[in-house]
């Protein structure tokens, strides 16, 4: 088998071929990127920098431009009382803030976990061949297509303690002994929010995973069948590793979304301390309480927390955005 040759080697790192064609391509790429970079700078970069700047000032809504630099005071400041006791104030010692951070992280962890699991199940079902698959695929997207405000309001009626259909069904089926104020009760508010979010976002997850599943060649499963691989093992040893790149990207999209959740909670459980997230609290301080600088500090922290979590996830999960390792 001397005629056999190796697959073409990967481009060696460090070796750069700078032909004219490559240079021309790089130049063209820069021009194509330019509009997007400008748009990003205007709609994301500038507001972000402004928020960070305001977080170091004493800005308020009616005095945005006369704000004065106060350094890290919004984050942490302390005064020593006459009694010798030191009192700390600021965002980093604000129990409300850390409560919101806890709520956000809990919400993100639960929602993304359940959405990934349910999304995977739905994707596996949709990947199977059956009659009317096209219609089911379209139908399953409906929750995702409904605007969040609408679905939040819809669910808040269904969850209503007096007239909600869920309480009514629960009572009639004997699952509930008394009607529950799902969204108002501190113990169930987070559950209610999670239910709605999982209902709403599972289709998105399913769709991204389905795209990954469809990349897996069918004949591998036939080879596995001849190898005698049990279907459960097929899933864990073949499907999951091969769909992992798509799954990881889907999870990161959802994680970013979940960490800055605002609209659903703002509509479904306003003013509930057990569901108040970082975004909700930041908005409250920025506009309702007229603590613009303090709210900006929260926004900045929110940005930092999301950035750190995302970088950790990409680094530890070895996520690749180029469509995986095949």
């Amino acid at each position, binding site marked *: *088998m001397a005629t056999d*040759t190796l697959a073409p080697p990967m481009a060696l790192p460090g070796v750069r071929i700078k032909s004219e064609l490559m240079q021309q391509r790089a130049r063209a790429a820069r021009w194509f990127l330019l509009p997007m970079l400008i748009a990003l700078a205007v709609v994301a970069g500038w507001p972000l920098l402004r928020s960070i700047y305001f977080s170091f000032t004493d800005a308020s809504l009616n005095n945005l431009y006369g704000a004065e630099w106060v350094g890290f005071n919004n984050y942490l400041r302390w005064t020593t009382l006459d009694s010798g006791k030191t009192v700390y104030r600021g965002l980093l010692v604000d129990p409300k803030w850390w409560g919101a951070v806890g709520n956000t992280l809990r919400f993100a962890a639960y929602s993304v976990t359940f959405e990934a699991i349910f999304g995977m199940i739905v994707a596996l079902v949709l990947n199977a061949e059956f009659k009317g698959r096209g219609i089911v695929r379209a139908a399953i997207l409906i929750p995702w297509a409904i605007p969040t405000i609408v679905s939040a309001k819809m669910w808040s009626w269904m969850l209503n303690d007096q007239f909600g259909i869920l309480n009514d069904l629960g009572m009639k089926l004997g699952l509930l002994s008394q009607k529950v104020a799902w969204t108002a009760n501190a113990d169930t508010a987070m559950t209610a929010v999670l239910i709605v979010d999982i209902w709403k976002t599972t289709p998105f997850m399913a769709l991204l995973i389905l795209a990954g599943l469809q990349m897996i060649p069918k004949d591998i499963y036939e080879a596995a*069948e001849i190898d005698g691989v049990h279907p459960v093992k097929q899933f864990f040893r073949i499907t999951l590793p091969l769909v992992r790149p798509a799954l990881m990207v889907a999870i990161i999209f959802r994680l970013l979304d979940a960490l800055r959740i605002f609209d659903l909670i703002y509509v479904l459980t306003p003013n509930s301390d057990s569901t108040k997230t970082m975004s909700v609290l930041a908005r409250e301080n920025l506009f309702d309480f007229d603590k613009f600088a303090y709210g900006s500090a929260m926004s900045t922290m929110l940005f930092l927390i999301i950035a750190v979590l995302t970088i950790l996830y990409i680094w530890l999960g070895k996520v690749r955005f180029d469509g995986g390792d095949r």
Partner: protein
Amino acid sequence: MANIQLRNVRKAFGAVEVIKGIDLNIRSGEFMVFVGPSGCGKSTLLRLVAGLEDITSGELAFDGKVVNGLAPSKRGIAMVFQSYALYPHMTVFDNMAFGLTLEKGTDKDEIRKRVENAAELLQITPYLARLPKQLSGGQRQRVAIGRAIVRDPKVFLFDEPLSNLDAALRVATRIEIAKLHESMHNVTMIYVTHDQVEAMTLADRICVLRDGLVEQVGTPMELYETPDSLFVAGFIGSPKMNFIAGDKAKPFGAHTVGVRGEHLVIKPSDGTWSGTVIHTENLGADSYVYLEMGTEEPVVVRLDGVNNYKSGDVVHISPMDDKIHRFDAAGKPIR
């Protein structure tokens, strides 16, 4: 050791019947090749034997035991796919060992030994730690064959294993498969191809399929020398057998006369037929002369060595004695 019997096997996909009742006996240790044009059902037939498709009606028996409902993994088969079907996320070693690691009671050293032996046999030992994407097509195909070997199967199934390889590699791998068959003389092999050269060179017996039915089963030489139909006569052999029909065939008492290119002799004059040269191909060892003589397709004459005929030359040809195949109007042989 496995004797495979197909009894009136049929397969339908919805309303479309693809396999239309096949009776076939594949002997233990035999190299059987299913050959036919695309769409004849040869791959489907193989997948029925493998158990990857359900048999619609009829019986499939291994050593007399009906296996219609038996899972593929319990039939003692191994299969090599056209597209290799390697697990892309596993190394070559894991690809070959995966099936074995799932069987209870096979210890690791035993698995390692079996994989290493197969790798040695196929000369892929240096690549055991690589992923499939780091291998060439030929190497991947050998890994796929290796994965089948380590299963120690009773029946070895090949689904067009060479069609994704380039011409030189195809010949080399064909020889390897032939050697493999010699070294595994206990193993029944079924091989699907649309390439009659592969069929002729590898098979103990060939089963020619056409439109979901068996056209003829026999050794390569039986098919070459005594084709049972016009279809088999035209399908087996390269270049294709010449068919001469109509008035030119009447003196032979047949509707169609078939003569292979290598059985035609060019005469200086007074040949049985005559025609005009329209094209010549010199291959070095032999050469083909294409003649226009009013037949549906030009008649090909195969000559040893190089020839000097030019387009427009008129030549006379005669078939060699008793190398004529006569067919009636239905395409059946007259013997």
